[in-house]
């Protein structure tokens, strides 16, 4: 009997040992995933304006591509106004005010066929159609985690911040975000949009356009640094590499101007091969880290006003 018990005991100890090793391995994985803790931000001391600087920027396209795809790490609050054709083909004016740490946002969208107010607060999005006087209210789970997110204090051209952020050295970072699968289909890995905007995101978190026009690094280049709305912008010019995408947007060539500090797309111009301007996004107002102190109160007031005056409808599914 003793022998049997000792035998079972030995097996049990082995099982526990195996689980302990597995747990240790898992912990090791977790610690390697906690890369954000290793950030060492470099001071923003570069004045980019010489041809050599532009040449240098064109040697680190992957860094620029990836930084712009992560532009929500470069600001806490943004507000502004832009006009664009990228929403429904007609000129539409979008005004926005976003506070990422507080997870509140306000969008106003106005055009020939559209007039909407979209307000986000308390993990709810209220969408009001100002034409039909109807509104919807939807729940979302905020993906913002203050303990994980590290806001960058450098600008989007800085290679060193990116490499330390990801702890990837000598790695093709851009290929991690956009690649072709075994079936030949493209795969695009989006970040969760911490701005919680659907319309303003075309400018303040332009993942669609960056994947659309900048995935193929040989199709675009940095042409210079300019001043736009009193801010330094990175000017990128290119040709649309994906023929279907070119056809869909009517854009064969483009010029994009990204705010150098935040990666926000302030200006976009899309052209046909004939030179005809077919798409545009033009920012008229833009402010970073100057969020209204009473934004939350304003959103609350506007939601109450909508709830009192508009008819509530539900999205059925």
């Amino acid at each position, binding site marked *: 009997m003793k022998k049997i018990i*000792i035998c079972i005991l030995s097996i049990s100890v082995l099982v526990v040992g195996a689980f302990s090793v597995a747990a240790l391995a*898992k912990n090791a994985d977790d610690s390697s995933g906690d890369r954000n803790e290793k950030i060492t931000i470099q001071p923003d001391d570069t004045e980019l304006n010489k041809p050599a600087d532009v040449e240098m920027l064109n040697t680190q396209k992957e860094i620029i591509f990836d930084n712009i795809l992560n532009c929500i790490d470069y600001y806490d609050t943004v507000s502004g106004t832009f006009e664009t054709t990228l929403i429904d083909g007609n000129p539409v004016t979008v005004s926005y005010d976003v506070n990422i740490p507080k997870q509140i946002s306000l969008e106003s969208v106005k055009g020939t066929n559209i007039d909407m107010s979209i307000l986000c607060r308390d993990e709810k999005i209220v969408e009001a*159609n100002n034409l039909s006087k109807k509104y919807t209210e939807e*729940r979302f*789970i905020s993906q913002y985690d203050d303990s994980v997110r590290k806001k960058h204090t450098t600008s989007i051209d800085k290679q060193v911040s990116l490499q330390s952020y990801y702890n990837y050295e000598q790695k093709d970072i851009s290929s991690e975000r956009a690649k072709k699968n075994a079936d030949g289909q493209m795969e695009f890995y989006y970040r969760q949009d911490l701005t919680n*905007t659907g319309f303003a995101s075309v400018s303040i978190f332009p993942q669609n356009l960056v994947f659309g026009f900048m995935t193929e690094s040989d199709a675009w280049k940095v042409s210079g640094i300019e001043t736009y709305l009193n801010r330094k912008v990175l000017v990128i010019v290119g040709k649309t590499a994906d023929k279907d995408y070119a056809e869909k*947007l009517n854009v064969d060539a483009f010029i994009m101007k990204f705010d150098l500090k935040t990666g926000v797309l302030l200006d976009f111009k899309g052209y046909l091969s004939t030179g005809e301007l077919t798409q545009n996004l033009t920012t008229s107002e833009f402010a970073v880290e100057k969020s209204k102190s009473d934004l939350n109160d304003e959103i609350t007031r506007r939601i109450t006003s909508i709830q009192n005056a508009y008819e509530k409808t539900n999205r059925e*599914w």
Partner: protein
Amino acid sequence: MKRILCCVLALVLFVAVFSFSASAATSTNFIIDNDSPDSACVTEHVGFDVYITGSSHYNRDCRRALTSNTAAWYSWENESKMLRSTNPISLTAGIYLNNTKFTDPDAHYYVQQRDGGYLFKRLNQNTARAGWTYVNYTINQNYATPGGYSVKGISVSTSGSGSGYTGADAISVSATTY
């Protein structure tokens, strides 16, 4: 001596079982095409009545609705592969679209839990490039059943604005919990 050994044995087995339940990962992975013939999958829709065929689409077909139709929705579910947990679920949701006519500027995508859902992605189908759009999402709330999390599928509803079409083709769900 026997009693001591039995006690030790019981303790060791308890620790082993506890370790297993604490560290065992459960997960689910599935892809559902529109109009899936798989009996385990349920695809339902209101609106999205136009059925389209073509080689660019997943399994050569998809559906579309007018973006202005505020009542239109499409849902993809697989109850048999639903992941349920009392711990948060880490989800990677995939949306496949490949049609130049899909131009909804603000299509709403929801993760479907057993008893409710949450908006997880507002996608401008107009400026999205053809292919798979993947988004990570942590499910750590359920207003219908607090403390009980699950995922069984995805649904999409039209923005209600614009003059084009909202597309519905294939979705993928890859979810893990501990």
